[in-house]
């Protein structure tokens, strides 16, 4: 388990918090970024890790139940029910499910097309489950790509996502601007022969910030939790004043170094009607130690295990 593995580093914890405060330059960043100590030591990170794991467990459980004939709506409902049974009451966004060429957002023109449809799963079809539950005030936002039966192309896409995960972490540690990193990911996709499909997301984001959410009344609006939207909006407002943005996009407003905090990163590859993505939380701190300055919240996730199992050369760019 990643948390156990990194527990040994907890000894170096103390300095991190104060360094964070200083490096933030009096901009008074809010939870949990500034409070984040070294990897795995922060109790609030445990909360995020727990809900992220719960979400991935849900994805694996639902994926295991998918059969030919299941519709996207049914798959979304299955995710919702699974998480509701385990205490999830609020959402960053409600679960999505995309089947077939909808995994590559083929022909998407307006955001309503993201919502689950009556498209039925067929043998050999790829699918993506995407959900963002809030559990005890902690948010996760995950994406899970799978396929009903063997699909060599889909497997290739999943393999190639490993390079993106490594690239993003490397460049965030180098403190490149988010826009630059976005374009570097774009270039890697072009070299791989893929299309960038996260450009289809609202504002074309490859990532967005997630944060703690107040528990209580939790309505949703167009599939997004109002509490989470509120958090994002206030981030956006403060970011606008301070010159950063909670949305990681290819546009000028993302032309700033990575902002400490939790980022749900979701590179999405598309290739001629087949799409694959992962989504997980990247922790950015303001530590000077590169290892500590950014790390994936959890390395014990299905897609990471898959790369390790295949002996896939994670970290090596093609």
């Amino acid at each position: 388990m990643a948390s156990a593995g990194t527990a040994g580093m907890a000894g170096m914890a103390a300095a991190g918090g104060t360094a964070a405060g200083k490096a933030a330059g009096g901009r008074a960043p809010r939870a949990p970024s500034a409070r984040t100590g070294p990897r795995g030591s922060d109790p609030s990170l445990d909360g995020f890790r727990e809900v992220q794991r719960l979400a991935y467990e849900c994805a694996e459980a639902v994926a295991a139940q998918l059969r030919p004939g299941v519709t996207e709506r049914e798959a979304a409902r299955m995710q919702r029910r699974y998480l509701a049974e385990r205490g999830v009451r609020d959402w960053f966004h409600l679960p999505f499910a995309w089947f077939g060429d909808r995994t590559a957002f083929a022909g998407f023109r307006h955001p309503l097309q993201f919502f689950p449809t009556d498209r039925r799963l067929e043998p050999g079809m790829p699918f993506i489950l995407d959900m963002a539950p809030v559990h005890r005030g902690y948010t996760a936002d995950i994406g899970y790509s799978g396929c009903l039966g063997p699909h060599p192309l889909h497997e290739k896409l999943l393999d190639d996502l490993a390079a993106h995960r490594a690239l993003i972490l490397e460049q965030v540690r180098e403190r490149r601007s988010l826009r630059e990193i976005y374009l570097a990911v774009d270039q890697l996709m072009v070299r791989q022969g893929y299309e960038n499909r996260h450009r289809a997301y609202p504002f074309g984001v490859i990532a967005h910030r997630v944060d703690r959410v107040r528990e209580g009344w939790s309505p949703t609006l167009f599939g997004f939790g109002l509490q989470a939207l509120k958090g994002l909006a206030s981030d956006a407002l403060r970011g606008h004043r301070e010159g950063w943005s909670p949305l990681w996009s290819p546009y000028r407003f993302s032309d700033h170094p990575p902002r400490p905090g939790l980022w749900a990163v979701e590179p999405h590859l598309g290739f001629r009607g087949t799409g694959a993505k992962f989504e997980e939380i990247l922790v950015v701190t303001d530590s000077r130690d590169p290892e500590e300055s950014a790390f994936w919240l959890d390395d014990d996730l299905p897609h990471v295990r898959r790369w390790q199992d295949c002996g896939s050369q994670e970290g090596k760019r093609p």
Partner: protein
Amino acid sequence: MSGSEPTADGGREPAASGAPALEGASVRRVRTAEGVELCVAELGERGRPPVVLVHGYPDSKEVWSEIARQLAADFHVILYDVRGCGRSTAPKPLRGGFTLEKLTDDFLTVINAVSPDRPVHLVGHDWGSVQGWEFVTVRRTEGRVASFTSISGPSLDHFGHWLKKRANRPTPRRVGQLLAQGAKSWYVYALHTPALPELAWRGPLGRRWWPKLLNRMERVSTDDYPTSSLPDDAAHGAWLYRDNVRSRLLRPRDDAYAHTPVQLVTPTGDAFLSPRLYDELELWAPRLTRRTLAARHWAPRTRPDQLTAWVGDFVRANEPDAEAAAGGGTRNGIGAPRRLPAAGAYADHFGGRLVLVTGAASGIGRATVFAFAEAGARVVAVDRDAEGAHRTAEMAALIGAAEAHAEVVDVADESAMEKLADRVRTEHGVPDVVVNNAGIGLAGSLLDTTTEEWRRVLDVNLWGVIHGCRLFGRQMVERGQGGHIVNTASAAAYLPSRSLGAYGASKAAVLMLSESLRAELAEHDIGVSAICPGVVNTNITNTTRFAGTDDKEEQRRRRQATRLYGRRNYPPEKVAAAILRAVVRNEAVVPVTPEARAARVLGRLSPRTLRLTARLRPPV
């Protein structure tokens, strides 16, 4: 064997004078219950999948000579002269002796003699295919035929239903289809007149005019074809029409469903059969694979390589005994039956065909390779960027390419291109489609362009295309079985601009070269298309040289251009689709983006306006 061929019953078969040799064939005579003697030839090793080739009208089994020779490497090939043709005897009397029922008896007699325990794969051309449809739709052959490849010959029953449907419920379109096919069928009416056709065939038509007609109208090489038995074949064969056409077209069978997988090969330039005849054929043949070939009616003579490949693939895919297929399938070095057919656009045209694309590591070239791969082609991705070319080939193999290879070559390098052409020919064969796409960008004022920059842009953009056209065009001409060359020009080829002078000059040269080459190669059935994409979102903006700028300024302009092209966001996939369409329709010049098309129209309507726009300072 020269002079004589052994017969199965120990006798010697005298070779008809002037007959093209089915070299190495063992020939035997099979006697039907009715007393007709059929001449059956066999090639290739027995025990391999048996393939029966049935000829059409006016022909004899020698029409298959080239295809039979090639198929014999992998299969047990069986050919026979239809009754009344070649060295088979004619029934007496002729009238009523050529009904499809009797022809089915002949077929069963032949396959029972040569392949009593194993179902055969059937291939028919023209009347051979008409017969084939009968063989695979009647119950008594069930279990005896494993697959059927139909070339230029519809089922008379399907044809009858086709006519009925159009005559009973005429719409303008249906009437048009009726009239079009009606005009193509003139010879059918002529053959129904008594005695005259026989007189004509036995007179100068059969003896002198027919070879010339075949050569001129069908581009069939007549060195060793047709055989000297043609006048008799043609005179006897007239009864094929008289005995079957009227009865079947007026009262078509309602149960003419194929009980085998069918591969339908439709030549697009067939003077006698409209491709519309095969609309809705899926209703009659549920396991149908469609193939489309740019050829005329006598495709077995003019396109033997492609037909052999398709027949071979189809036989292997439908061979019940997988091990035997693996043993027999040595072409391409892999014997396992392939996935058939591919699903992409124009899969019927490009399935199994060899396509070579230069500049295939990115942008339009890569998208073109992928589009051909989705259509099931065998692709060769050429680029000087080894990593990119290999990546393209790797991805192409995942999306349906029958084979995918990468070649690392700089198209500007003459000797490297010559080696490439030799290598491709020996390893994969002559390409059916060559896309000369590799190109580099060069922007900036002409006065600032150095000679070195000029040389580089001409070397790649023009000389690369010249080498590709010269080397592969030569291979296509030598093979003599058609082909297509696509050259990527540019909208800058006809759109003057103060900032793209050198690039535009190189592309204008490509455009004119393509148009001239098209004229030159037309007589060889080789098409040439020039593609003028326009502003397309590819990597070219990141590698374009900006003349008269230093490194930093160049980087800035590249970024700016990339952003501009990104905002236009015209995907290379659409250009690739235009390239496939251009090959299928044999289009000469294809402007792709709306602005490229508008500029071309404007250049004709008002060249002056176009010249004025050339003076505008570009945003980059």
